[in-house]
């Protein structure tokens, strides 16, 4: 496992190097960062001067070498908009996103597993059909709509829940958390639910279909013959076998959620990384975008490493280190 991690760490570096190369290459296609920094009446010459100052007119290689030399020293450049080191900005916003994703993930796990299992066990039941129909609708209703409808019902009409932002947070060892105040928790509800709503149908369906496969296996039959409680058969024997694809899909989805919860965060004005990314694109905040993309690469490498590790733990027949039998 140690060797595995060392190997992965090394691979992660390569991944991030490649990402930085590509991210840097596309910068010029994102738009003109100057436009967002100056007023409309500033002349083109003025802008050229600023461009020179920022080193935007340098050739790709010069820019890239400069970037990579700094990056090696841990400096990914300063965001134009935030005027702070990009990495710092991202880490700041990440807290909000992680809490959002964590909340959504809990909802997904808590809802999708029982529903998926139930509908696999009773494939012909009415409730199953309802669940499946709902999940189909869920897939095709865009988040945006879900979010607005939720907002409409729960904050405008009923006035129970706040409609935007994070609310009150408490600082725990430098982590600003909304999980420990009532206000913070209330603010979490709607964004988490609507974020979960996009992923839920996928997971319900996945649990169900994998579960159906597992239920037709011999070991489930034998587990039943052993006289185990049916719940134990379903939720331990069968479910553990459905965990494998679930884990993989889950891993990718969590990574994606951390990285690109753009819509949810935008609708709820959630100060997280997805929103940050969208704004950075809008403002052509290139240092921030580059840092961000590299950082997302890291997220994926990390989540996928964890997934692969867990995979090896759950499935003993798979040898993660890749060595032969």
């Amino acid at each position: 496992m140690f060797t595995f991690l060392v190997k992965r760490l090394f691979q992660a570096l390569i991944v991030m190097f490649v990402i930085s190369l590509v991210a840097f290459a596309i910068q010029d296609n994102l738009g003109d960062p100057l436009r967002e920094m100056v007023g409309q009446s500033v002349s083109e010459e003025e802008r050229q001067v600023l461009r020179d100052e920022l080193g935007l007119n340098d050739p790709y290689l010069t820019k890239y070498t400069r970037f990579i030399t700094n990056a090696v020293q841990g400096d990914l450049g300063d965001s134009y908009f935030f005027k702070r080191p990009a990495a710092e900005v991202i880490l700041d916003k990440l807290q909000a996103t992680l809490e959002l994703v964590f909340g959504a993930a809990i909802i997904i796990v808590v809802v999708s597993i029982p529903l998926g299992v139930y509908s696999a066990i009773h494939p012909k039941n009415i409730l199953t059909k309802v669940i499946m129909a709902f999940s189909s609708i869920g897939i095709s209703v865009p988040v945006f709509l879900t979010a607005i409808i939720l907002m409409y019902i729960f904050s405008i009409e009923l006035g129970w829940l706040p409609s935007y932002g994070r609310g009150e947070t408490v600082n725990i060892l430098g982590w600003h958390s909304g999980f420990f105040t009532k206000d913070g928790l209330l603010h979490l509800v709607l964004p988490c639910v609507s974020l979960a709503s996009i992923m839920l149908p996928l997971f319900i369906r996945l649990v169900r279909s994998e579960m159906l496969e597992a239920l037709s296996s011999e070991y489930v039959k034998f587990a039943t013959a052993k006289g185990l409680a049916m719940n134990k058969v379903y939720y331990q024997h069968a479910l553990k076998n459905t965990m494998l694809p679930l884990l993989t899909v889950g891993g990718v989805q969590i990574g994606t959620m951390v990285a690109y919860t753009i819509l949810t965060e935008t609708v709820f004005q959630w100060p997280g990384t997805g929103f940050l990314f969208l704004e950075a694109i809008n403002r052509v905040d290139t240092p921030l975008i580059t840092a961000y993309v590299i950082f997302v690469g890291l997220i994926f490498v990390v989540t996928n490493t964890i997934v692969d590790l867990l995979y090896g733990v759950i499935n003993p027949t798979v040898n993660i280190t890749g060595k032969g039998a």
Partner: protein
Amino acid sequence: ADITVAYDSDPVTLDPHEQLSGGVLQMSHMLFDPLVRFTKDFDFEARIAEKWERVNETTFRFTLRKDVKFHSGNALTADDVVWTFERLKTSGDFKGIFAPYSELKKVDDYTVEIISSEPYPLVLQTATYIFPMDSKFYSGEMDGKDKSSIVKHGNSFASTNVSGTGPFVVTSREQGVKVVYERFADYWDTNSPGNVDKLTLVPIKENATRLAALLSGGVDLINPVAPNDHKRVKSTKGIELTTVSGTRLISFHMNQNSNEALRDVRVRQAIVHAINNDGIVKRIMKGFATTAGQQSPEGYVGHVESLVPRYDLKKAKQLMKEAGYEKGFNLSMMAPNNRYVNDAQIAQATASMLSKIGIKVDLKTMPKAQYWPEFDKCSADMMMIGWHSDTEDSANFSEFLTMTRDAETGKGAYNCGYYANPKVDQLVNQANAETDPAKRSEMLKEVEKILYNEAAFVPLHWQDLAWGAKSNLQVDPIVNALNFPYFGDLVVK
């Protein structure tokens, strides 16, 4: 009273000289006070300057108030104003506005004189941009860096620290999340009816979310309110919609360089006649815009009453025929889709209207980040551009949009129509040196008429401004066409 205000964005900096943009000016009016400020109908109201007078063609004198204190506790004197002026001259964004002036001179501790190199008519207009800064506070060094420096990228003292004379002080600021303003205890304007003790500004990007925040009571005031949502705001009990006709002109430029047909004045006229801008205002803008037939909105010196929109499909077809384009032609069009209110829809509607006179439009819309580089290149035959005059003056429109492009003088910098008319250039230049308002007005009106007749560009409308607020906020008195509400004077019942 404590209120929360939701805007679509928050100020990018606390330095009033860093960027000339709506957000920064909104911030400036809360933390600072200008020498004078606009009233609702483009008149001037005394702020830091108590009195003003024109001394001669090139000199203008301001008498300052004596009881003004900065947030730091320092008292304001003429030195601060001079210091501020000097700093403005070094600001990339603002130096253009102050280019006509050679100097700001201290006469005594509470009197200053501003001197232009040529006779200059727009002194008061430009004085609205002079927000005196606390020279003592901003002088010196911090961490080896000059506190007064204006930095566009990267951190500076002034972008995070403030000492102004305004009604509010910043007590906390988390960029992109919120800014908390609290009433400045020693504010000089004791006559101000304003009773807001604490104002929290939160940026909410999404129109629907901002509206929801207002409807659910999470915030007290929002701006902007999308035209689609006006009905909803108006019909909600306890919430009021306040609108003001705006001065931002939305228009299309017809590129004579890239499309030969557009060089023909008849074709340009045909296009102007084919576009039902009334329809656009009514249907797309839901009536929350003023149909335009010229650059200057009402209230501007160059505004000509008679230059009305001229939608007339028959005439348009006729003109096309005359120009020899009976069969029409192809034309490319570009527009942003997140810059102006309903920009992409307006472009689409325009394209469809043009198709009725046989012009086949290839329309491309894109986010502003991508649009501006295209606009800089004038990539399409028709490009949308919105313009707001920083000086609330007619000449400004022409300077940037319709004067002959000239890289040296910087005139016509946004003229993607490549329209060029020496007469217009001459008239605008003259007007900019004419201090007699009446004469000046004549010149600028003349300009508008020429542009109208030659169909130099396609005027669509002036965007209106709208605020949605709880009824206990008396919004109407503090808002204006410039979109920086004077929150210091806001009364909350």
